[in-house]
């Protein structure tokens, strides 16, 4: 794509609450628009004015460094006024409910609220109470749509396509919103999706979401074009879902030996933050097949695309 060419893609909906419900054309439209921002972000002058005058609130009920800063940068590069609110500083600490927070913020006339919350469905609940656009930055174990979009952009740029690829998503599927959003997106775009992990971390009924299920890395990674590792939360490591981190690493941690089960040109991804030596070995994480740093770069571009495409649909746009 040449830098001068401009996508005029509009996301004709008020909110982005999940990948579920997006069409193939909408996903492609967002990825095409994001490509433009990848170019822009690599230039010295990174600023656009398309969100000038708009107010974006990042409302994070759960701590996040990477996603919150990515959304902040994305909003600022498009010219929006960006305000960050996190659980540690907000009145949520004082017992204000999610709904009251929504009503309070809504009275300040924001144009876009970016929300992360620890409970599945919380972002959708909040979206029903506000008049502006809402972007889901992760709700419980439900969805994390911009993560799936940035993963898709990363894959598409490196493999030239998504259709027909085999993608293995490995680790804690049960608690992962990243896994759910990716499963829906990759299925929608024609990839073959496999989930791999110990059975305690695979939700019963997951096979009905259109994925193959593997319980060991050899079967799970066979013929994989993409190996997507998930973070294992510390509280799930010792005896509750898996016996220990060393046993987990032995069977499911991605090292060079296990990566060799995949296709020779397979690429490795991780949504971060990584537990090195638990779900992924440093040599693989930093190796030639790793796309992990590129994912972070794509994160900003994809979030700019989402903000831009939603704002084009805002009133008075």
């Amino acid at each position: 794509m040449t830098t001068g060419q401009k996508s005029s893609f509009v996301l004709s909906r008020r909110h982005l609450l999940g990948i579920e419900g997006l069409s193939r054309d909408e996903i492609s439209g967002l990825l095409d628009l994001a490509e433009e921002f990848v170019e822009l972000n690599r230039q010295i002058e990174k600023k656009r004015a398309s969100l000038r005058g708009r107010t974006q609130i990042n409302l994070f009920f759960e701590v996040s460094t990477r996603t919150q800063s990515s959304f902040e940068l994305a909003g600022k590069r498009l010219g929006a006024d960006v305000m960050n609110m996190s659980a540690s500083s907000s009145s949520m600490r004082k017992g204000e409910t999610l709904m009251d927070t929504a009503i309070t913020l809504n009275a300040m006339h924001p144009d876009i609220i970016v929300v992360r919350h620890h409970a599945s469905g919380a972002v959708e609940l909040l979206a029903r109470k506000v008049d502006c656009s809402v972007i889901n930055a992760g709700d419980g174990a439900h969805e994390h749509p911009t993560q799936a979009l940035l993963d898709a952009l990363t894959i598409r740029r490196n493999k030239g396509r998504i259709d027909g690829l085999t993608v293995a998503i490995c680790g804690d599927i049960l608690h992962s919103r990243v896994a759910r959003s990716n499963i829906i997106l990759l299925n929608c775009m024609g990839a073959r999706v496999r989930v791999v992990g110990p059975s305690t971390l695979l939700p019963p009924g997951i096979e009905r979401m259109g994925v193959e299920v593997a319980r060991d890395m050899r079967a799970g990674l066979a013929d994989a074009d993409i190996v997507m590792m998930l973070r294992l939360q510390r509280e799930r490591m010792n005896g509750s879902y898996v016996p220990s981190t060393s046993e987990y690493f032995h069977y499911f941690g991605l090292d060079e030996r296990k990566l060799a089960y995949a296709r020779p040109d397979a690429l490795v991804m991780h949504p971060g933050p990584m537990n090195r030596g638990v779900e992924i070995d440093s040599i693989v994480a930093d190796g030639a097949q790793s796309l992990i740093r590129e994912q972070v770069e794509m994160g900003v571009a994809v979030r700019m695309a989402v903000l831009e495409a939603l704002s084009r649909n805002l009133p008075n746009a």
Partner: protein
Amino acid sequence: MMLSDRRPILLANARIIDPSRDLDIVGDVLIADGVVREAKRGIGAAGVPEGTEVIECRGKLVAPGLVDMRAFVGEPGAASRETLASASQAAAAGGVTTIICQPDTSPVIDDPATVDFVLRRARDNAIVHVHPMAAITKRLEGGEMTEIGLLKAAGAVAFTDGVKSVTNAQVMRRALTYARDFDALIVHHTEDPALVADGVMNEGEFAARLGLLGVPSAAETIMLERDLRLVGLTGGRYHAASVTCTESLEVLRRAKEAGLEVTASASINHLTLNENDIGPYRTFLKLVPPLRAEADRKVLVDAVASGLVDVVMSDHNPQDVETKRLPFAEAAAGAIGLETMLVAGLRLVHSGEIGLMALLRALSTRPAELLDLPGGTLKSGAPADLIVVDMDVPWIVDPNELKSKCRNTPYDEARMQGRVVRTIVAGRTIYEIV
């Protein structure tokens, strides 16, 4: 609403269904002095005492008033959610003439004085009959047994720890053994709390899609299976408070075939709704036990039709807006149901899933029998607790028009066919749609 005086009443030309006698006829019901005098063909206006109020019921159904075996009422301690007065208004509008209220109140109904408190409050404020269940264990803690003998003498009709399970098998064994000496019924919520853990809906595809932790149906069946072994050991009278899944029904069937004194309830919610109805995190459909798969629902309806499941109850559980307007996992569980139980059940009748006789038996006759209450029948001399139902009138549930103090109905804006048009308690019309 007009309250009639104590004149005799003749309900004329009605379709009369009395499950206690397998009676389904067109005829008349004569009520006088608070009791059913007769319910039969052709009493006619001629054969009634002077001054009798004759109510034409052509095309309508007359049946025993419903006995709701499981309803949470907020007295004592949660009157903002529901009072005996508001619950009884909701009951009257739904055709329920007897409410069995639950002991998981604050304080817990675990001593005779509290039973007495509820009965006196009900006498002064409720327009339908109210009988409390008392706790099996003190403070519902699953440890020390309550004074089952004294509580029963004070008026507790059965013993339950509400939505808590007695996890200690020894405690349950002793309670069943001791209760047997007083012919007291133990009603038990069967869910293994360790298996439920942080689960908030039925385990399976839909929980996986919504990113919610699931509750396996085995959590229910395992506890039920344990209980039934203990019933075999002790010979106590046992009632499963709410069965929801195919596996539990299989276990129940085996216990009944073995001749154990075992009965069970199903909630109207589990008979008419399934896990898919949760849709986009609708917290009004967050229930304990959780709504199951459609296949389970169908089997459960069949079990009520066959009598394997004895009782249908509302599981009425009023919750404030503030405890429901939260993310699904954090929201309170429970739904109101006193006012919609019968009409929701009529959906199953209209769709041909169950016969009217079987449904009404599970809603009135069987619970009255199990709790040794005089209602649930239209036999001569029975208390005149009965309902008149228009089986066909269409209407839409408007939560704002329901009589409960809370609005958490899972049938919000649902289309219903059939409605209670008159409710009579002890010979007096307490609810009427003109």
